């Protein structure tokens, strides 16, 4: 039976291990977001070259989430929205990032590819899927823009640290054991296909 969890960041390994695919999660604490492919590429390049990343990823969460931070005249920064993107686009970079940074969750939508799932299993990391298209309500969880780096990118691509309160519901798409909700659902649907086709054939009116 699926459960609902309230977690705080930085994560504790035992809490992450407890998550099962299909569970719902609400998060409180600081997350790192960016929706930029070039940003992920740069993170990987920093890792490959042994350079220090400008933000601390350890026990944290990296999200393929677009965020627009507005800088007001008085110098304050306001997050106008956050919104998830399709995580499979980032497949070339995620396995390395998970392996090297100590993040314990990746956030986005739609799931991740096989290499990322393998890396998650090896490194005790989970995938948490946002509800796509629900930017208005999802954004209400943002409490503070903590840090913005790599400002040479467009706003949504910058590496941004946000403090959130009860962010969610997020769906556990991949657990630390490498179980993947989306692969399972697809296999289950394929298994049902013969029966569904049989039903379609049985109910189809005879051709004139």
């Amino acid at each position, binding site marked *: 039976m699926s459960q609902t969890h309230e977690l705080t960041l930085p994560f504790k390994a035992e809490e992450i291990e407890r998550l099962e695919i299909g569970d719902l999660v609400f998060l409180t604490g600081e997350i790192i977001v960016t929706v930029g492919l070039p940003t992920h590429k740069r993170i990987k390049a920093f890792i490959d070259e042994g350079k220090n990343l400008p933000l601390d990823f350890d026990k944290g969460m990296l999200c393929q989430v677009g965020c627009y931070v507005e800088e007001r005249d008085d110098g304050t920064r306001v997050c*106008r929205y956050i919104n998830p993107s399709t995580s499979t686009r980032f497949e070339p970079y995620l396995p390395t990032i998970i392996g090297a940074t100590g993040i314990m969750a990746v956030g986005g939508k739609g799931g991740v590819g096989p290499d990322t799932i393998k890396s998650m299993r090896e490194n005790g990391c989970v995938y948490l*899927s946002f509800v*796509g*298209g629900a930017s208005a309500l999802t954004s209400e969880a943002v409490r503070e823009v903590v840090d913005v780096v790599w400002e040479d990118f467009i706003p949504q691509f910058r590496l941004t640290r946000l403090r959130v309160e009860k962010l969610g519901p997020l769906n556990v798409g991949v657990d630390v054991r490498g179980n993947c909700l989306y692969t399972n*659902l697809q296999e289950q649907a394929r298994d*049902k296909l013969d029966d569904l086709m049989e039903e379609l054939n049985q109910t*189809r009116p005879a051709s004139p």
Partner: protein
Amino acid sequence: MISYDAIKRLSGDLYDWSLKKIPEDTKVRLAEAESMETGANAKKVLQFMIHSARVAEEEGRFLCSDAGVPVYAVKVGSQARFEGDVKRAFSDGFDELVERIDPPLLRFVQNPLTNERSFKGKDMPIVSWDIIDGADYMDITCSPKALGSGRWAALEIFVYPSLEDIEKYIMDTVIKAGSQHCPPVMIGVGIGGSFDQAAKLAKMATLRPMGTDNPEPILADMEKRLFKAINKTGFGPMGQGGDTTALGIHIDYSAGHGFTPVAVCFNCWINRRTRARIYNDGTIDRIE
């Protein structure tokens, strides 16, 4: 006369509105789905979607900040009269919206040859044109498209397919997309005609208001049966698992020549769509 300025403003507004409000028929279908969903977490996800859409509409915020690219279906009345450039009004309307919309749009128009992203590009906005004989207005539908659901569309050419072949292809395409396209989705299918016609039929089919009957009895029946079958696949809202994978499936066809293209496309659950008419006397009628 329908002026360049009026088209420019209206085309920009239609795009703006489509980013902040889901269509009324889609709200109704989501509410129905939520009341019938048996998966506990799937029900929670549907409730979150419905609540978020309400907040976006009430507060004029983005439903989804990935605004896609602007796509219009325009029908021009044969009695409509114009003052100024019509095609340019659409591209200028988009340029003007980029300047005025708040918060700013993601820079998302991409050149597929160089991967450069900007607010401008060849053939942008994407507009398809049609004629309505006798009408004294221009009917404009805006239905933006982004990668999330756009990438799962598919087309295959069959030769004298049976109805079973067609339905099997639709089911295969649905299962391949899985839960990647932000379900529950609106599915459009185009059968026959030619390569380009089938794709256009599929896209236009997604624009037909939900709850309206297909005038072709064979397709009306196919829609009902496929709707049930697709919702038994079990993907559920956002791949949460559940009974609600599709909001609807609309199918259209054209006569053709034995080779039968079948095109399938998807709109994510926010089903972005707005529509208005602009008349010769300058009146604007916002339809949705």
